[in-house]
């Protein structure tokens, strides 16, 4: 972003990568695929790079409003300094926080999640599913991330991205507004679960595997971790792939 600014240019959209997308090895792949998609359709985008920092989401959900607002205000200062208008995020948690909680602190932007961007591109005819890996007839089940689904009512965008694949979409029993959490939200990602008789991600994976999928589609780096761990635990890594919507889209287009 700093480079664009120095060159006196403005991006169409800022890609907010997020901490997981920046540091988590698995999520980095998703980050790069989102970039490939942006590049493929010729959208002029920018990233903040080292100027990005945590949105404060996990701190806020854990109850640390101070830390959240410190992060939020610092980020808003950076975003406003660059005169950012539109943001796409690679993570539903960043998406929810910037979209819903930043405006009250002086940061108002048009914020979309990457699955919404993909849906828009498909609707505009700029993105298809050709030239790459064929998902035709493959059994795919989509896991709704809480902060995209229930939290913000986005159920159709990710499904639209899967529909163009001509794959066989199978829904889990608990899907859309009734979707079951992967177990990572509310800062659970960063702690051990409380005492119980099962881990939440295992409960979810059991349900996902009941659909006999070849691919479990995700839209959130935290869900990705939880679901991948679940598949690993069930020893199904060979048969079942956990892929982000962005990765599926990139693969289908040979990017």
């Amino acid at each position, binding site marked *: 972003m700093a480079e664009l600014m120095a060159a006196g240019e403005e991006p169409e959209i800022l890609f907010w990568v997020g901490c997981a997308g920046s540091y988590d090895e698995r999520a980095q792949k998703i980050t790069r695929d989102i970039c490939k998609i942006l590049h493929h359709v010729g959208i002029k985008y920018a990233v903040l*790079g080292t100027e990005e920092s945590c949105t404060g989401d*996990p701190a806020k959900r854990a109850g640390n409003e101070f830390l959240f*607002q410190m*992060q939020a*205000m610092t980020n808003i200062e950076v975003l406003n300094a660059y005169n950012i208008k539109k943001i796409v995020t690679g993570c539903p948690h960043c998406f929810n926080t910037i979209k*819903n909680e930043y405006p009250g602190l002086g940061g108002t932007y048009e914020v979309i999640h990457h699955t919404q961007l993909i849906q828009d591109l498909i609707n505009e005819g700029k993105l298809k599913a050709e030239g790459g890996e064929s998902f035709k007839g493959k059994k795919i089940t989509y896991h709704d991330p809480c902060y995209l689904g229930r939290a913000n009512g986005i159920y159709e965008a990710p499904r639209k991205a899967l529909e163009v694949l001509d794959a066989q979409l199978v829904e889990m029993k608990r899907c859309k507004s009734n979707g079951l959490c992967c177990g*990572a939200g*509310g800062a659970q990602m960063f702690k051990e679960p409380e005492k119980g008789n099962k881990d*939440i991600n295992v409960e979810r994976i059991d349900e996902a595997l009941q659909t006999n999928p070849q691919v479990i589609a995700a839209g959130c780096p935290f869900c990705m971790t939880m679901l991948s761990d679940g598949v690993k635990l069930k020893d199904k890594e060979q048969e079942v792939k956990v892929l982000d919507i962005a990765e599926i889209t990139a693969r289908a287009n040979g990017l």
Partner: protein
Amino acid sequence: MVAQILFLVLTLAAIALFTINLRKIIRNIRLGKAVNRNDQPAKRWITMLRVAFGQSKMVVRPIPAFLHFFVYIGFVIINIEVLEIMIDGIFGTHRIFNGLGGLYNFLIASFEILALTVWVSCAIFLIRRNVLKLKRFSGVEMKSWPKSDANYILITEILLMSAFLLMNAADAKLQSLGVGHYVQAGAFPVSQYLINLLPSTESALVIIERSCWWFHIIGILAFLNYLPYSKHFHILFAFPNTYFSNLEPKGEFTNMASVTNEVKAMLDPSFVPAESEPGKFGAKDVTDLTWVNLMNAYTCTECGRCTSVCPANITGKLLSPRKIMMDTRDRITEVGQNIDKHGAEHQDGKSLLDDYISREEIWACTSCNACTEACPVNIDPLQIIVELRRYAVMEESQAPASINAMMGNIENNQAPWKYSPADRFNWAQES
């Protein structure tokens, strides 16, 4: 004449007692912190019409939705009959609305059919709770009073409907015998089948008819006064509770204004906050919550839809969103009783956090909003959990060690993990 006076006294006493208890509950709710839920009135009315009147969130589970709909419609419509009972009781008349002719017959007939459907639905509900033992109705918080409460309500409704139908049957028989006071009025599609079970002497029939009439109306007045002590209060509070729903996206947590002031002052030393709001951060006790949280607690009818979809509860953790609401209600009731007994300044040394809700419960929440989505009357347990966490973290620095580590990482490295901020852009180097 004696009967009329007795009726009037009973009715007025029942209404007075109910008003006193209702006012106490409203006073208790007002112990909560202010929050503005008067914006967007049009959207609020629509939400109330859709969710409370229209029962839109009940349909997710079709069987209870269907049965509940009968009980709900029965409750609303049979109240027209209660109006007639009131007028008859005060003026000593009999079936005063008889003048409506064909319409009256139609009304009585539909009340009878509704009474039967209410009867059957309540019976099925009892079976679901006590014979089939549906998982949703069990749980640590559903022992003793809450368990009995549900059964009392269902049994009372069955008794009330039975009295109503039996009263009509006796009335119909008296009408057919041509007893003077019992004018020809009403149609009795259900109670006609009870007629043969009744004695044929006039005096016995009058006793049955009058007993059922008195039982029905005294039962209703007693039930009215049972409501403030019961989960059944939802039949009244479902309406204001949905009107004052959270209309923002579920994922949006409130930004605490008191914190904003401090953070602004930290980032910019020249900033002077408009007004400083003393007090603690988050909630330790019920009076630290908002009045909406407290109204939510009184509205909860303990149906357990929230708990049955809670990922933490499903996987055996201690957290149950229903318990969060019941604990909040029980605690605010206790605070209210303390005020009545010892005055407003009394402290009993107890609090919602720790004495009612444990740390283990609040830290098990994934903030996934399944509970708020599932609640048929838009109750929000999540907000209470977050307020308790805020207290634990900001006032006491009492978070699980790993959460503290995560927050330390955000403070020092601007990421929840221990990575260097300088490495944040490394993903761009293709691996």
